[in-house]
C-alpha cells in the first residue's frame, strides 16, 4: 500500500478522481509489487475473488488467485514476448522478478493480454480477459505491475449458447428428412441439405449447378413447380402444395412443396424451399381411406358386382392406376372368370374390358392366373418385356408359355406399360384375383400392394358370402328338386305330429294341398275315420321318438283305401326331440305284383307237377314189376328214369318252396312251436331212409318253444337230417342235440360224413351250391335245400351255420330266438330286414 500510496503521490493514482474511477470500476484491478506482493485490489476484485482486500494486500498470493498452472503459463507467455527463456523450478519471488523484468523490457505501448481463469477464495474458477501493464515511477523505472481483468463468464456463456444453437440448426438441417433449400430469384440452388440427395439422387454440387431447381422434378410436374416458384417470388407464400412426381426408377413420389420469399435488409432476395416426401404417409392415408371406402361400399351394395366395380374404381383413382379387373374363381371348372372391371374414362379401355368379359383364365396363365397359382401378388413392371413376340407360323399346340398372352397383348395395345395382380382371400382360401394396369412403367410397390390387400379383405368376405349363399341356394334348389321328384310322400312333422311340410307326392297321395295339410295331425290325415283304436301302430309310431317302419292302409280323400308302407324318423336338435319326418309310399302295385307272383307260382307248380305225376306214376308202376317182369337192362333204365323223375319233382318242389317262403308273409303265420316235437317228427320222417342207409339216428331233445311256422321248421330239420344221412357212410351215426340258451335255443345236427371244406362252410347255403358238383346227380339233391333252410331260419329271426367237426364230419347248427325282434305292428317281412 505504501508503494501504491507512494506511487500515487507521484502519479495519477494519487488523484482522487482517478482513485474513484479505479475503485468504482466493474473490472478487477490489482497492483502487484516486483516481488509479487499484492499492493492493492479494488472492490470489484474483492467481489469477484471473494476475498477481503486485507486477506490479500501485502501478501505474495498473486498466484493463488489464478487457476492452477495459469500463473506459470501467463509468465511463460510474457517471457516469450521478450524472448527470455522460461526456466523451470523458479521460486515465486524469482518468477515475479522475471515477469517484472520482462515487462520492463516491453515498450509501454505493448500491454500483454491473455485469456485465463481466476480462482476464487472458495476454489471455484471463472474466465477472465486480463491485461498486464508496467507500473512505473516518474523516472520511468518499473515499480510493479498492474493487472486488469474482465470477468468473461457471461460472455462465454453467451458464445456457448450461440454455438450450440448454430449446431442444433445445422444438425436439424443436415439430418432433416425434409428437403430444405435456399433458392436464388432465378431458381438456382444456393443451399440444399442432404435430404435432396436421398430423394432425387443428386449430390449438392450437382444441385448447385442446375439452372433451376424445377429441373430435379419429372417433366410431368415441372410446369406446376415453376408456377409455384413464381408465386413465392412475388410474395405469395406457397403452403404444402401437393406434387406427384414419377421417378425414373418407376416410383411415384408424393411431395409437399412450401415456398416463401426471404428479404432482409442485409440479405439479397431469396426463396426458401421446403419439400417433404409424403409418399409413405399418403399411402397410409390412402390405405385407411380405401379401407373405409371399401367397407362402406360393401355395406351399401347388396350386389357384389356393383360393390366390386366401385372398389376397383376407388383403388384405381386413389393410386392413379388406369385399369382394374376382378376375376372370380370358378371352383367347379378350375379357372378364373371375369367378374367386373373399371377403367379410366378418358383412356378408352373398352376394348380391354370387352376382351376380359369373354375370357376365362387358367391357373398360371396371364397376370391373374399367375397370382392365383402362386398365391401371392405378381408384378410386371414392363409388360412388353414379358410378352414374347407373336409367331405367325407357330403351331396351335405349342406350349402356352411361348405364346403371347392375349390379355397382356390387349393391355399393351391400350397403352398399358405395367400390370400386377393380387389374390383376394377369404380366410385361407383364394376366392378371386384383382388385376391392375398402368400406363406408367411402375416398379413393384409394396405399399400399394398392402393397400390393395387391405381393400381386398372386405371384398373377399363379400365374395365368400355370396358364394356361400349361392351354395346354400343351390343345395336348397337341389333338395327341392329331389323332394319334388321323389315318388314317396314326405311330410315334416312338429313335435306333436302335425304337418309342417309336405312334398308334392305327399299332396298327391293325401289328395290335399300343402296349405290344407299344414298344422293337421299326420295320423288323422292317413286314418281319417279314427276307428283304428289307440293301439294303431301308425299312431304309436307317430307318438314315439324312435325310428319305426310299417305298413298300413290309408284312406284317400276320394274314399278309396290304399296300402302304404311308411317310415318314421325322429329329428333331434342338440339331442332334443324337435320333430320328425314321415315318408310313405303307395304299395298297392307291390301287392298286385305279389298276388301275380303267387298266382304264377301256383300255376307253374300245377303245370309242372301234372305231367310229372304221369311220368313218375308210369315209371313207378313199370319199375315195380306190377305190370310184368322185364329184363335187367330195361329194368335198370327204368330205375334211372324213375330216379330222375323223382329228382325233378324234388327240384320243382324246392324251387316253388323257396319262392313261396321268400315272398311269404312269414311272421303273420307264426304261432308257438314246441321244438322238441318238431325234432321228433323230423327224425321219424327220415327214420326209414336212415334205416335203409344203415345210419343210426340219435336225438336228445329239451322242452323249448319258439314263435314260428311249425311246418317250415319241420322242413328245416328234415332237410338237415336228410343231408346228414345222405352224406354219411353206412354204419355212421347222426345226432340231433338241443341246447337252450338265455334268449333262444340251438339245435345241432352232427354227422360223421366226409365233412365240408372250410372255404365252403358258408357257400353251401347259396342256391344250387353243393360241396361236390356230382352230388346233385349222385345224391339226388336239388342244391336248394340249405338255401331254403337259411331262408326259413332267418325269417324266424335265427341263424344257421355249418362247422367242421374236430375228427370227422360236419355239424349244422340252427339258433332260434325265443322272441323275435320285430315290433308287433311291423308287417315288413323278416327276410327283408335281414337282407336275405
Amino acid at each position: 500500500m505504501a508503494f501504491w500510496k507512494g506511487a500515487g503521490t507521484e502519479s495519477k493514482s494519487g488523484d482522487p478522481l482517478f482513485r474513484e474511477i479505479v475503485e468504482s470500476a466493474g473490472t478487477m484491478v490489482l497492483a502487484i509489487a516486483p516481488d509479487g506482493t499484492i499492493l492493492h485490489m479494488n472492490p470489484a476484485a474483492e467481489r469477484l475473488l471473494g476475498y477481503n482486500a486485507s486477506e490479500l494486500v501485502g501478501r505474495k498470493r498473486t498466484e493463488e488467485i489464478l487457476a492452477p498452472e495459469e500463473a506459470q503459463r501467463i509468465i511463460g507467455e510474457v517471457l516469450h514476448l521478450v524472448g527470455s527463456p522460461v526456466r523451470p523450478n523458479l521460486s515465486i519471488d524469482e518468477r515475479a522478478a522475471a515477469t517484472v523484468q520482462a515487462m520492463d523490457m516491453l515498450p509501454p505501448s505493448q500491454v500483454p493480454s491473455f485469456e485465463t481463469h481466476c480462482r476464487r477464495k472458495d476454489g471455484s474458477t471463472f474466465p477472465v480477459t486480463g491485461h498486464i501493464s508496467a507500473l512505473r515511477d516518474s523516472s520511468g523505472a518499473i515499480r510493479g505491475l498492474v493487472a486488469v481483468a474482465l470477468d468473461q463468464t457471461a460472455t462465454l456463456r453467451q458464445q456457448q449458447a450461440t454455438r450450440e444453437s448454430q449446431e442444433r440448426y445445422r444438425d436439424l438441417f443436415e439430418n432433416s428428412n425434409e428437403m430444405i433449400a435456399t433458392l436464388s430469384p432465378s431458381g438456382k440452388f444456393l443451399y440444399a441439405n442432404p435430404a435432396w440427395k436421398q430423394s432425387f439422387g443428386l449430390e449438392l454440387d450437382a444441385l448447385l449447378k442446375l439452372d433451376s431447381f424445377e429441373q430435379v422434378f419429372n417433366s410431368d410436374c415441372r410446369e406446376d413447380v415453376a408456377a409455384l416458384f413464381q408465386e413465392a417470388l412475388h410474395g405469395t407464400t406457397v403452403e404444402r402444395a401437393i406434387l406427384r412426381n414419377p421417378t425414373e426408377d418407376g416410383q411415384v413420389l408424393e411431395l409437399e412443396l412450401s415456398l416463401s420469399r426471404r428479404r432482409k435488409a442485409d440479405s439479397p432476395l431469396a426463396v426458401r424451399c421446403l419439400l417433404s416426401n409424403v409418399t409413405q404417409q399418403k399411402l397410409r392415408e390412402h390405405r385407411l381411406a380405401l379401407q373405409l371406402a371399401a367397407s362402406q361400399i360393401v355395406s351399401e351394395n347388396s350386389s357384389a358386382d356393383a360393390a366390386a366395380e366401385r372398389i376397383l374404381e376407388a383403388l384405381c383413382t386413389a393410386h392413379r392406376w388406369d385399369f382394374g379387373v376382378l376375376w372370380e374363381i370358378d371352383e367347379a371348372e378350375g379357372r378364373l372368370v371375369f367378374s367386373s372391371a373399371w377403367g379410366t374414362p378418358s383412356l378408352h379401355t373398352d376394348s380391354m374390358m370387352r376382351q376380359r368379359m369373354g375370357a376365362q383364365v387358367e391357373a398360371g396363365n396371364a397376370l391373374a392366373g399367375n397370382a392365383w397359382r402362386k398365391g401371392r401378388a405378381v408384378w410386371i413392371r414392363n409388360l412388353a418385356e414379358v410378352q414374347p413376340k407373336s409367331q405367325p407360323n407357330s403351331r396351335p399346340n405349342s406350349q402356352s408359355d411361348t405364346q403371347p398372352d392375349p390379355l397382356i397383348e390387349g393391355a399393351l395395345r391400350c397403352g398399358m406399360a405395367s400390370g400386377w395382380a393380387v389374390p383376394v382371400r377369404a380366410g385361407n382360401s383364394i376366392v378371386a384375383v384383382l388385376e391392375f394396369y398402368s400406363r406408367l412403367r411402375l416398379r413393384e410397390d409394396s405399399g400399394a400392394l398392402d393397400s390393395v390387400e387391405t381393400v381386398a379383405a372386405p371384398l373377399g368376405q363379400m365374395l365368400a358370402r355370396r358364394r356361400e349363399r349361392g351354395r346354400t341356394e343351390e343345395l336348397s334348389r337341389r333338395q327341392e328338386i329331389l323332394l319334388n321328384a321323389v315318388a314317396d310322400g314326405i311330410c315334416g312333422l312338429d313335435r306333436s305330429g302335425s304337418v309342417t311340410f309336405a312334398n308334392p307326392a305327399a299332396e298327391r297321395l293325401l289328395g290335399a294341398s300343402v296349405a290344407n295339410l299344414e298344422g293337421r295331425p299326420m295320423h288323422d290325415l292317413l286314418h281319417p275315420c279314427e276307428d283304428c283304436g289307440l293301439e294303431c301302430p301308425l299312431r304309436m309310431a307317430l307318438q314315439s321318438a324312435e325310428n319305426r317302419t310299417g305298413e298300413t292302409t290309408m284312406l284317400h280323400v276320394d274314399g278309396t283305401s290304399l296300402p302304404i308302407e311308411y317310415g318314421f324318423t325322429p329329428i333331434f336338435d342338440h339331442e332334443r326331440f324337435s320333430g320328425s319326418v314321415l315318408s310313405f309310399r303307395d304299395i298297392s302295385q307291390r301287392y298286385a305284383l305279389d298276388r301275380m307272383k303267387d298266382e304264377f307260382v301256383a300255376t307253374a307248380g300245377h303245370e309242372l307237377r301234372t305231367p310229372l305225376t304221369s311220368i313218375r306214376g308210369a315209371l313207378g308202376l313199370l319199375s315195380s314189376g306190377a305190370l310184368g317182369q322185364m329184363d335187367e337192362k330195361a329194368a335198370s333204365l327204368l330205375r334211372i328214369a324213375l330216379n330222375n323223375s323223382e329228382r325233378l319233382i324234388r327240384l320243382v318242389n324246392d324251387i316253388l318252396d323257396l319262392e313261396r317262403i321268400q315272398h311269404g308273409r312269414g311272421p303273420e303265420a307264426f304261432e308257438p312251436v314246441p321244438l322238441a316235437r318238431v325234432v321228433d317228427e323230423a327224425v321219424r320222417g327220415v327214420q326209414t331212409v336212415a334205416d335203409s342207409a344203415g345210419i343210426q339216428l340219435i336225438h336228445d331233445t329239451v322242452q323249448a318253444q319258439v314263435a314260428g311256422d311249425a311246418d317250415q321248421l319241420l322242413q328245416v330239420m328234415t332237410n338237415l337230417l336228410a343231408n346228414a344221412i345222405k352224406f354219411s357212410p353206412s354204419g355212421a351215426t347222426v345226432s340231433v342235440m338241443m341246447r337252450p340258451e338265455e334268449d333262444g335255443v340251438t339245435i345241432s345236427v352232427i354227422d360223421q360224413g366226409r365233412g365240408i371244406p372250410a372255404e365252403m362252410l358258408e357257400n353251401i347255403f347259396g342256391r344250387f351250391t353243393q360241396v361236390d358238383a356230382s352230388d346233385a346227380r349222385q345224391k339226388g339233391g336239388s342244391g336248394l335245400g340249405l338255401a331254403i333252410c337259411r331262408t326259413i331260419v332267418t325269417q324266424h329271426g335265427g341263424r344257421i351255420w355249418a362247422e367242421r367237426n374236430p375228427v370227422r364230419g360236419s355239424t349244422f347248427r340252427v339258433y332260434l330266438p325265443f322272441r323275435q325282434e320285430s315290433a308287433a305292428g311291423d308287417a315288413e317281412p323278416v327276410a327283408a330286414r335281414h337282407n336275405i
Partner: protein
Amino acid sequence: MNSVPRRILIIDDEEDIRAVAAMSLESIAGWRVELACSGAQGVVQAESFQPEAILLDVMMPDMDGPATFRELQRNAATAKIPVLLLTAKSQKSERARLATLGVAAVLEKPFDPLTLHRQIADILGWS
C-alpha cells in the same frame, strides 16, 4: 284185404294221370276203378257207379274239383261218398283252403303209384 274189390271213381281231365292212377289202384291194390274225364261226367258216373271213394282232381276246366264236390254233396245219392282231392298245387294255404271244403283228404300230386292205395286206405280207415 277185403275180398270184394274196392270201387273207386277217378275224376281227372288229364288222361295220362287217369291211366296211371287207375293202373296203380287196379294192378297194385286190385281195386275196381272207373274213370271220368270231367266234373260233370264224374257227378253222373258217381251216382250210377256208387264208388266207395272218389279221387277228384282240383283243377279242371268248366267244373273244377271244389264245384264237382259241391255238386256231389248236393245229390243225396252221392253226398256220403268220401272224396279225396288230388292237387298239384303246393301252397300250404291252398291245401288248407281245400281241406275246409269237407273232403276226406287232400292228396298231393305227384303221388307214388305204388303207395297210393295204401294212402287212401289209411285215410278212409280201410283195414
